[in-house]
């Protein structure tokens, strides 16, 4: 095998076999935050959702916002690996496993919240149709039952997709392992991959198939999530443009997160040869495009409401959000999601890793406030003025959101520690053929 390929192989496997010094402290810190998360979750389970800030009318607040936010962030992973795979974008291969892992860990977080915010979480399984002694079934006109299927499907498919792509590299890790223990562990996870040409062919086709179904999945999942609001009659929720609008926002925030994670990793692991400036540039373009779609959605929603002459809708959009108690969220959203990304028209901006990193943080914050504004803002002032209320998050809300971030990073550092996070075989292939 050619020497540069071997060199590349060396470089990429050493990322795992010779973990950098900073990894251990990171694992410890994020590990502790994860523990804090589960302590809080346990506390809420025991004491009741009253420990969160939710109330009537704002019965959905932080937890659902976080749920939608995390789900959305996940989307870029599948999008990159699946969509770009179908488009045979070669540049995806150096970042796709990264992005897919990101998807999975984001989905852990997302999955936590809908269950956490239930009044009686221990009955969450009632959303599944199983033959119970009550002979009562779930109610499938509710978008919440759609959510259950969509999210679990999304998680499963992403996991299979990710693992399938991983198997050849696990085999490589097995073969390159330094110690017997490593060989055994990687050997087990490699499931006996032996590089037969026939397997390779089958692998390519099935991998393509999974990519093929993952692409419509990405679109459908966030569309369904958006229907948690769109099928409601709450002014500010009841909007037909939600599905495309949410999907665009999801990919938008997802690419931002890839940047947030990829740029430091690239610097720390010195991967400039693998993740080149061109990669950053291309991702920046994606961010810009999706940002424009999102901006258009905002505009379209406003226009539709203006033309609609529904006093409740108009009040919701043009008072509650733009000038009311949720104005801060609204304007943060506009700045972070619409104004700032426009700087990406400049090539310099697209090529500056540091700038992209900072921008990506703003975008994540902006996407969070957008969801918060839509969910809680709309609820705080719907139809009867007598029932309007305010919302203030509780300490638990904050701790749990913080904790989920820590949990996400913890999982991510584990991934960096044990898994070849740059697809070795695929990059080799791209290098050589």
């Amino acid at each position, binding site marked *: *095998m*050619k020497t540069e*390929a*071997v060199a590349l*192989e060396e470089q990429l496997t050493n990322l795992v076999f010779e973990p950098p010094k900073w990894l251990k402290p990171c694992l410890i810190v994020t590990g502790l935050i994860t523990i804090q998360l589960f302590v809080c979750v346990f506390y809420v389970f025991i004491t009741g959702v009253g420990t969160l800030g939710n109330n009537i009318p704002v019965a959905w607040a932080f937890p659902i916002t976080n749920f939608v936010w995390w789900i959305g962030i996940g989307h870029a992973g599948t999008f990159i690996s699946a969509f770009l795979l179908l488009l045979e974008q070669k540049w995806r291969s150096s970042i796709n496993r990264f992005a897919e892992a990101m998807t999975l860990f984001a989905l852990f977080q997302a999955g936590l919240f809908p269950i956490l915010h239930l009044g009686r979480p221990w009955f969450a399984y009632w959303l599944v*149709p199983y033959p119970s002694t009550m*002979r*009562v*079934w779930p*109610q*499938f*006109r509710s*978008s919440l039952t*759609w959510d259950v*299927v*969509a999210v*679990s*499907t999304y998680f*499963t*498919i992403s996991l*299979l*997709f990710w693992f*399938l792509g991983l198997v*050849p590299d696990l*085999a*490589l890790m097995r*073969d390159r392992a330094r110690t017997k223990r490593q060989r055994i562990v990687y*050997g*087990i996870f490699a*499931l*006996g*991959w*032996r*590089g*037969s*040409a*026939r*397997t*390779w*062919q*089958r*692998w*390519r*086709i*099935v991998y393509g*198939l*999974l990519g093929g*179904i*993952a692409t*419509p*999945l990405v679109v*459908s999942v966030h569309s*369904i999530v958006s*229907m948690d609001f769109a099928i409601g009659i709450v002014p500010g929720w009841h909007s037909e443009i939600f599905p495309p609008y949410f999907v665009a926002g999801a990919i938008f925030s997802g690419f931002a997160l890839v940047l947030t994670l990829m740029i430091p990793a690239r610097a720390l692991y010195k991967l400039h040869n693998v993740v080149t400036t061109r990669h950053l540039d291309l991702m920046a373009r994606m961010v810009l495009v999706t940002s424009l779609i999102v901006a258009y959605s905002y505009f379209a929603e406003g226009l539709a409401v203006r033309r609609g002459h529904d006093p409740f809708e108009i009040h919701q959009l043009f008072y509650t959000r733009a000038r009311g108690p949720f104005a801060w969220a609204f304007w943060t959203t506009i700045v972070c999601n619409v104004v700032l990304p426009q700087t990406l028209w400049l090539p310099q901006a697209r090529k500056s890793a540091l700038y992209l990193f900072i921008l990506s943080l703003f975008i994540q914050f902006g996407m969070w406030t957008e969801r918060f504004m839509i969910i809680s803002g709309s609820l705080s002032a719907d139809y009867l003025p007598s029932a309007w209320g305010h919302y203030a998050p509780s300490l638990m809300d904050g701790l749990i959101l913080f904790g989920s971030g820590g949990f996400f990073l913890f999982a991510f550092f584990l991934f960096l520690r044990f898994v070849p996070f740059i697809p070795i*075989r*695929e990059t*080799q*292939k791209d290098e*050589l*053929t």
Partner: protein
Amino acid sequence: MSGLLARFEDHHALVEAIHALRARGYTQLDAIVPYEVEEVEHALAIPRTRITWLAGGVSTLCGALALFVLWWTNAHDYRLDVGGRPYFSFWTDVPITYETMILTCGITAFIAFFAASGMPRLHHPWFSIEGTRDGFWLAIDASDPRFDPEVASELRGVGATAVERLDDEA
């Protein structure tokens, strides 16, 4: 299983060797490659896998099943008036049906892939040969009618750098 493994410099040499052997009428050939090399696959004339058809079929069935469950639970077994909505309405059932199809399709394809590739496994004769991880190898199975242990010289003839003999009693 047993047979021979012959190592080649790069995949071009491998491809030539494959052509040569196939010309001699060898049928039970396989190759070991570090990453997918489509020339090799073409040379070996591997038939296209039918997993996609299987997955498609299964997912269609499961989709239909899902739709049936939705109808049976909400519109047949326990009819409850829910907000004056119809007991069964196809459009509200689309999302679940659709997601079910995707889910089952993926799972089928995944399982079928490993089954068809004789995986998962931990032990395989090839593993006993040093260097199968990064070399380009040609494998002849002993079950091949033209197979005989003396084929090694023949292989060297078509450019093998090393020839290893396999027998399963490892």
